[in-house]
């Protein structure tokens, strides 16, 4: 479940944790720059905190639409050749990556 306590927005930016979550390898320069930039962006976002939003329903989908559904039919035929051709590495019909350790 979601942690409902809101952390203090003034806290330091957990740049390493974020870079890890986002799978972005950052060098030292980038790390420092992004940490600083993000701190400023977060400051800018703080304006949201000062506004009273009590009782306001979040708006996730702009206009009150509902999803159109699709009939259960097979419409995609074997396109694997074209797709595998675009793979950085493929073999025997598989996409290949370095051995994943579970």
């Amino acid at each position, binding site marked *: 479940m*979601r*942690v*409902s*306590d*809101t*952390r203090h*927005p003034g806290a330091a*930016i957990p*740049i390493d*944790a*974020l*870079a890890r*979550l*986002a*799978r*972005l*390898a*950052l060098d030292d320069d*980038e790390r420092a*720059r*992004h940490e600083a*930039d*993000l701190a*400023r*962006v*977060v400051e*800018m*976002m*703080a*304006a*949201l*905190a000062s*506004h009273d*939003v009590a009782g*306001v*329903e*979040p*708006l*996730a*989908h*702009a*206009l009150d*639409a509902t*999803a*159109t559904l*699709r009939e259960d039919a097979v419409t995609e035929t074997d*396109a694997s050749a*074209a*797709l595998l051709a*675009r*793979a*950085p*590495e493929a073999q025997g019909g598989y*996409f290949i*990556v*370095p*051995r*994943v*350790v579970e």
Partner: protein
Amino acid sequence: MSAGGGTSGPDRDLASLAADLAARATSARALAEASSRCAAALQPRLNALITATPELASSAADQVDAGRPGALAGIPYVVKDNYCTSGIRTTCGSRMLAGFSPTFDATVVARLHAAGALMIGKANLDEFAMGSSNENSHFGPVRNPWNLDCVPGGSSGGSAALVAAGAVPFAIGSDTGGSVRQPAAFCGVTGIKPTYGKASRLGLVAYASSLDQPGVLARGAADCARVLAVIAGHDPLDATSSTAPVGDYVAAAARGVQGLRIGVVEEFFGAGVDAAVADRCREALAALERAGARLVPVRLPSLPLSIPAYYVLAPAEASSNLARFDGVRYGHRSSRAGTIEELISNSRAEGFGPEVKRRILAGTYVLSAGYYDAYYRRAQQVRRLIANDFARAFEHCDLLAGPTTPTVAFRLGEKQADPLAMYAADVNTVAVNLAGLPAISLPAGFEAGLPVGLQLVARAHDESALFAAGGALQRETDWHLRRPPGASA
């Protein structure tokens, strides 16, 4: 310095071009070739294209000349390079997709093709549509045809520049926070973002899915109307696509503004807006008054919150949308990869530019455990407040008006040091995306030789009102007919 050319593109409005084609005063092939040549000649100065497709355009042109019909038959155009074009390189302005070609056409592209339009190339853009200046492209910045030292705006910079320079009569862009309207304003062309869901997003590489919309840039409102009529309409393959009917936009552009109430939004003329820009916009509004519209003052009190709300929501969605780029199944794969973890992290580090990384990190932050309620959820609540503000304003008027941007086009490099400065300038455009409403930017005079844009916003699905106003303004004024100095007449 401005974009001179000896090579002229098909610089006429769509109705005239269609008439010429029908009368055989010109051929589709001639138009395609002229357009391709013009774009190629401009390339060293503007850098507006990432991929040129002259042969494709010519062979499609031949089909038109052989009798293939279509609402836009024989008309050359460019499409922003974040639209999938089957078998044709689609880079999104990124190293991540520098060598990538999709296996299908975006619905918008397919509809244009079915209408006989001729794609002459893929236009340069800010990487993954993230930016307001087209300085964030892996393929280099685009320059403004009005002043080569200035930005054309972004993220649809290439699209706007080529229309402004007369290489193509229309272009397709995408607009998430202003990326069609702001470059239209900076480049002196007309740019429309329709209602969210109006045009299909299938094949438009997602930046922020709940905000993205295809848009049209052209010389005038009537031409935008003509093109939007072709690309708009329900797509069952896009679950967010609207089933609301498509209006008769071309007719709307001709109908005039008698009795139309235009709300002049106080917050759109806020403190950051350049005085000259504000003046030009008021002059444009006066012209609309002369044409029969009524101006009323109106407020959007939540407008200042739209920047923090947008810069929480858009990066959040982007951080998730861009997670698919991992070097595994397509796109750039790092050669420095021993383990799977390294492969993913290094491919992404190498493939993405700094602005994209900045937004992915910000988006990851606002969605992460402990921050979701304070930022993401709160931004969604503010989003509803903004939508409510618009709804209230539209109780008193049919259109809302204000400057599209606070300034005219700034110089290349001027805002690179401070990303926040760039963000803040989007204040008049992002609110529209948050509320899902349609809006248009119309040429409204000049300041220091650079174009000014007037933005009009309409109720959901009332693009017709935008075209009516645009058409009326462009019958009263001729700013939309001006060309960059040295460009083809």
